[in-house]
């Protein structure tokens, strides 16, 4: 009785959460535009893949010959589970209007609702294109029932992985809550961990390339026959049908049995998370500020000027709430592959120079990206204060720039200088350091302008904390401009230092300097105007 009621409530909550998401996607013209771009991009890919799927359907004559069936049978459940776990830890650990739902229905209904809404979102983003592919394949095969049977077979798999992933994710959040030290370690360690993973993956990729281990070969190794058997059940009623294997039935039974167990586990953890202590309002880490007796006391170099004190405020907030900086991880994804291939192709001394250049590039990147990519969104809660105080807007923005420089400049200057010990020629190191000094402010101006052009105000729940992350579009645009510009500048400096200071090179460098400085200055002015626009 109560199960049925929870399920009914869960369905209603799931529907409501899904509707809320859809309304969120289509809230304003900007989002609609982003959505249209995404649809066009992925829709365009379907133009190629649909005929391919159709052709594959026409040519396949036995189930074992279906392309990618083995790897899909393994990666599908594993991928779904991982996705559900990550999404739960990232976004679904709590529910909006928690106080309402938890005093209205049983927590189990809330868990069911959240999982159902997530499945709905998944179906909307990935389900539709995948369904189109399956339909095209079935059409090629001449088996109209295939989409139906495939859908029926995937359902238990989806339910099981979604529920178990939710249970894993929310248990993870519980563990993080219990172990504040672990959480603090993770905050700092996450970046290092990501970097490590990336280096590892690059090394692995190059090892594969060198030993001629093909991706296809690797995929062939990944196969669990029982799972493949299970997915092949979808071919019932088609020419490919090979009969029911006991393993497939066992998998189905397993999925059906594990789902309620996963739900029970999810409910227990959710209970502990939501009622154990004051949920999300729990301040992360300590509530008392270190040395709070002293008040707001920036250290020496920051204390000299007002913009410095403002910068210190930004830095302090970032230290106490590092999730605000999670957008910086994008750098790892963008630069990792490039660095990986550069590093594997060179040796010794060249490697040191590459490291020096990387340091400069990263420093310059950080100078803008850390605090500059969403200034209006970041400042929104304080705007009424900021715009009414007598501090000029200029100073406020300079404070933001200074905070970014305080983080970026040391990296941009010290890393190349430090690599001298590893074999970077001294002139190169000094040249790069000087380059960093010159370009970091430009990057900061660029970031402020881009960030003001496309501010994001809505806080999102990331890793159990509310943050306003910059728009992905701004982040990508900034990254490409800065990293692209940086690589040209680094090469220019290198060529210049090799002695061939031809007039042509000088002219080129001059033009490029103008091309760097001018847009940056213009964008900085633009940011200033956006801020001032609020007071007019």
């Amino acid at each position, binding site marked *: 009785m109560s199960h049925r009621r929870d399920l009914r409530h869960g369905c209603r909550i799931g529907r*409501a959460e899904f509707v*809320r998401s859809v*309304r969120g996607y289509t809230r304003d013209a900007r989002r609609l535009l982003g959505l249209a771009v995404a649809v066009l991009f992925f829709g365009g890919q379907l133009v190629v893949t649909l005929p391919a799927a159709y052709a594959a359907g026409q040519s396949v004559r036995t189930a074992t010959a279906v392309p990618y069936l083995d790897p899909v049978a393994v990666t599908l459940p594993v991928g779904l589970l991982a996705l559900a776990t990550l999404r739960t830890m990232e976004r679904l650990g709590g529910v909006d*209007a928690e106080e*309402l739902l938890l005093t209205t229905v049983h927590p189990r209904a809330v868990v069911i609702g959240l999982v159902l809404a997530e499945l709905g979102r998944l179906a909307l983003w990935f389900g539709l294109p995948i369904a189109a592919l399956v339909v095209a394949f079935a059409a090629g095969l001449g088996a109209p029932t295939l989409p139906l049977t495939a859908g029926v077979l995937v359902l238990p798999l989806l339910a099981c992985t979604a529920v178990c992933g939710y249970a894993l994710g929310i248990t993870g959040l519980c563990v993080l809550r219990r172990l504040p030290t672990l959480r603090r370690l993770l905050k700092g360690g996450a970046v290092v961990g990501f970097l490590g993973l990336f280096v590892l993956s690059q090394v692995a990729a190059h090892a594969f390339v060198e030993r001629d281990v093909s991706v296809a070969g690797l995929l062939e190794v990944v196969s669990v026959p029982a799972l493949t058997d299970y997915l092949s059940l979808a071919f019932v009623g088609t020419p490919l049908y090979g009969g029911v294997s006991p393993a497939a039935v066992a998998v189905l039974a397993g999925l059906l049995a594990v789902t309620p167990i996963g739900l029970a586990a999810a409910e227990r953890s959710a209970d502990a998370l939501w*009622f*154990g202590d004051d949920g999300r309002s729990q301040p992360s880490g300590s509530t008392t500020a270190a040395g709070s007796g002293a008040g707001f006391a920036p250290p020496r170099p920051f204390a000299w000027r007002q913009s410095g004190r403002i910068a210190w405020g930004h830095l302090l907030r970032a230290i106490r709430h590092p999730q605000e900086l999670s957008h910086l991880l994008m750098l790892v994804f963008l630069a990792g592959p490039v660095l990986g291939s550069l590093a594997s192709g060179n040796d010794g001394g060249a490697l040191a120079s590459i490291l020096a250049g990387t340091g400069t590039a990263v420093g310059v990147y950080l100078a803008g990206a850390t605090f500059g990519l969403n200034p209006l969104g970041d400042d929104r809660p304080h705007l009424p204060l900021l715009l009414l105080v007598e501090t000029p807007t200029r100073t406020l923005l300079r404070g933001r720039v200074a905070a970014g420089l305080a983080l970026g400049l040391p990296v941009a200057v010290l890393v190349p200088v430090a690599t001298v010990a590893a074999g970077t020629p001294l002139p190169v190191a000094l040249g790069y350091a000087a380059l960093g000094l010159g370009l970091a402010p430009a990057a900061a101006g660029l970031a402020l302008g881009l960030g003001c052009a496309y501010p994001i105000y809505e806080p999102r729940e990331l890793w159990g904390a509310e943050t306003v992350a910059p728009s992905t579009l701004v982040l990508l645009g900034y990254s490409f401009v800065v990293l692209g510009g940086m690589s040209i500048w680094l090469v220019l400096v290198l060529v210049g230092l090799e002695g061939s200071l031809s007039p042509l090179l000088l002219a080129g460098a001059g033009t490029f300097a103008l091309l760097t400085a001018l847009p940056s200055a213009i964008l900085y002015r633009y940011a200033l105007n956006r801020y001032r626009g609020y007071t007019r």
Partner: protein
Amino acid sequence: MPSTHSPGAQPAVEATDLRKRYGDELALDGVSLSLPSGTVYGFLGPNGAGKTTTMRLLTGLTKPTDGEARVCGTPVADRRELVSQVGYLPETPPLYEEFSAREQLDYVADLRDIPPETADERIDAYLDRFELREDAAKRIGSYSKGMKRKTAFVQSVLHDPDVLFLDEPTSGLDPRAARRIRESITDFADDGTTVFLSTHILPVVEAVADTVGVLFEGRLVAEGPPADLTDRAAAGAESETLEDAFLAVTGGDDPVEGGE
């Protein structure tokens, strides 16, 4: 929905020695309460005294470090029973910005399993009463603070709870809306609902509360009918308002002087 419990048979809210610790801070230090059904309990206390914490404990949203609480005889840990008996209006209205007030209220009625006709009737009546009818189709994201609070108030009483917990229900409301809430509170009490009301607006308490409890630093330092409290304060001072009583029991002997 008439209460299934005969009035007077058992307290509507009963708490024994509730304690709540956040880290090394003791937010609640042994609070005991017993409210007969049908009373309006005015819950007073300075900022940070632990009023919201008490309400979260009594609605089962937070687990106490120590002690136990029952609402209409149901232990607050028994969520399945508890949810139909309590209504809770938190400090920040728990609403969905993407919904309109109408959708929000329909959704809550649906989750409460109120039959659609009854729900429609009640929602219409409340929307009229709080003058939300005209804006009922607009998204809540565009509402003012007071409109949000009114909507949240309606959603907390839709299912006719046995015990209603209201955390500062009138803050941010215009005089008319505040009066409507006050009238609603009295109406609910007349119908046998117990109202647990936290507020800083003392005239509201004076107007509607049968009993007043004053919380100070996590402890209940005074309890009784409003008149008794003011009398007690008057014994030591020249004036005799609830405000003086409040300042007397929560501030020691440094009553806050009026502005220069």
